[in-house]
């Protein structure tokens, strides 16, 4: 089952590689990983999307907690949460495709953020599924390049991950 883990860790050199190394050393999966500093510059926040049985996820959580730099780990799946991913997608936009791409971007609430005579670059945010749906929806042959951040997640409502 797909799980989304949110990790608060010390913003120190090497902390990220320790987390990633743990996944590879113990043969766990990383589907996506996003990381950046938080409002507190001494802390980083990492979102890891992974999959596995409940036992595997429990082990991953425990092993992550064992890392010295890891302050807290929560499994966002355990309660209501919101997740978003950003995708930048560059598409060919000539002839009839140009108008079609504009329409598609509007339908998916994307924004065209760069325009050339032949291309559009569209910014899209949403769940991973929504971004996937956009790729499915457009003609594959017009896609020139995509770049996705991987999911970032946060608990819904009053629930916060803090020290």
């Amino acid at each position, binding site marked *: 089952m797909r799980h989304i883990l949110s990790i608060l*860790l*010390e913003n120190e*050199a*090497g902390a990220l*590689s*320790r987390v990633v*190394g743990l996944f590879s*050393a113990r043969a766990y999966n990383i589907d996506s990983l996003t990381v950046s500093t938080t409002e507190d510059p001494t802390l980083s926040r990492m979102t890891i999307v992974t999959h596995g049985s409940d*036992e595997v996820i*429990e*082990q991953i959580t*425990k*092993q992550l*907690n*064992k890392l*010295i*730099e*890891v*302050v807290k780990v929560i499994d966002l799946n355990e309660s209501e949460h919101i997740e978003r991913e950003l995708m930048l997608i560059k598409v060919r936009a000539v002839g009839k495709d140009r108008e079609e791409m504009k329409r598609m971007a509007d339908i998916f609430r994307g924004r065209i953020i760069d325009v050339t005579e032949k291309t559009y670059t569209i910014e899209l945010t949403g769940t991973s599924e929504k971004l996937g749906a956009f790729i499915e929806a457009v003609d594959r042959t017009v896609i020139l390049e995509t770049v996705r951040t991987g999911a970032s997640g946060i608990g819904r409502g009053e629930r916060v991950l803090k*020290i």
Partner: protein
Amino acid sequence: MQISGAEIVVRCLQEEGVEFVFGYPGGAVLEIYDAIFRQDKFKHVLVRHEQAATHAADAYSRSSDKVGVALVTSGPGATNAVTGIATAYMDSVPMVVISGQVPSPAIGLDAFQEVDMVGITRPCVKHNFLVKDVSELAATIKKAFYIAKSGRPGPVVVDIPKDVTQQRAEFRYPDSVHIRSYVPATRGHSGQIKKAVNLLLEAKRPFIYVGGGAVQGRAEAEVTELVRSLNLPCTNTLMGLGAYPGSDRQFLGMPGMHGTYEANMAMQYCDVLVAVGARFDDRVISVPSHFLSQPKKIIHIDVDPSSISKRVKADIPIVGDVKLVLREMLEQLKQSGQKPEGAALEAWWKRIEEWRGHDCLLYAPSDELIKPQMVVQTLYDITGGQAIVTSDVGQHQMWAAQYYKFDRPKQWLNSGGLGTMGFGLPAAIGAQLANPHAQVACITGEGSIQMNIQELSTAKQYHTPVKVLALNNRYLGMVRQWQEFFYGTRYSESYMDALPDFVKIAEAYGHVGLKVESPADVEPALREAFSDKLKERLVFLDFRTDQSENVFPMIQNGKGLDQMDLPPHMRDIQQVPFENNRDYGNMC
């Protein structure tokens, strides 16, 4: 007053009360070596290979309650230490390894003797540091010691670039350490402990399974009180040997792949299992599915939450320091004033005694060939069970664990988790330095000893009079045993051709060498080795043992605890499923 980074390192080690640093100099750590030269609070032990520095520091720690310290240079010096670091990591031994690094401006430029030590050791340390600024040096070393010995102990590497050892700073050693992201568990949850107590009191077939955590956590008194006060049967794993006295009636021997018949049967057929600082390793329970095919409730006490429910789901997990948890358990038991049901426990013991009655460690004695088991038994007799015993890895290790009865913790030092050949001799040196008045014996094989035989030189330099017992069967014995069992007796590369004359080797290093070829000579040779005359000398005993002897019982991969390959005298016993036994119908 400002002092150099190298002097700061030395001052930190002094502040930590370090007695010995095991190491090997080199370009990147010369400043530190110079600072060591100019002090006399701790001694430096020059090993002959950095792997031995880490093993000696490790065993120094294992045989005492202190943190072992190793010091190595950068590049190859650092990578040579990795095997010893991984060994300590697998067995949760507190150790601090200081490695030199090329000067900061050279890092990342493929400088001479540069290696990413922090990167290389990351998967096999509890934590590691690269010190970038001399002002952080003292606090980092303080943290390293704190992390190494607190919670579930383990090795910590501090990598220090050469220029940091040359820069100057004020020396301030912190009194305490606070790391917000690292708060090791101490006391277990009282509610969980209560549940455990109740479950234990209801048990009809209880069993206590004690691992290395009880040795590292110094919980031997609590383990012993729990086992004795409730008249429970108990087993110590390879790493837990000595946590409960090995010569006691309530001790059933070691469990697992080469465990005793009675310990494995009890482990399989108990109804309540209390795991104390043990982690259900594959060498102990074999396959979880078979282990759990007999219903049992599991109480698991461990300081490391990730060890709980890793291989086997615990019914009552208790995260905490084993000593503190057991104390609270004993307190609650006292308050309840209850004992397990006497009749059921008596029946359980009766069954255990039947299993024990088969005497699974019996072996056929011989007048012609030296039986390796007999060498270990004779060592036990001659040392009165008091020696500190180190071992390498292989058949000799298992015989040492089976036939030397360890009555106290920290008396048996071996590489249980990683299974490191070459551990025994440097470990014996480290243990002897930590325990100068103890008798230290290294039980090894002719294969293992050659992986770090150069440490005979270190033993000479530091006058560590350890007794090396090589059980020499001219084979990589455990490999040969497996090839015999699983590979159609095709002894591919397990035969140690072109063996050296170990007596001459010992003599060349300035020690005493004794070759023992007949069973009748085993005891006299050991008596001589441990005699007052040779008290101050390292004695290397080369026992030419029976080449065909195998370690029994044995559990093959994928088989269950009650599916042991038994020694010849037990092959005819009927392995009746436990439930079908009439006498115990009421217990199941």
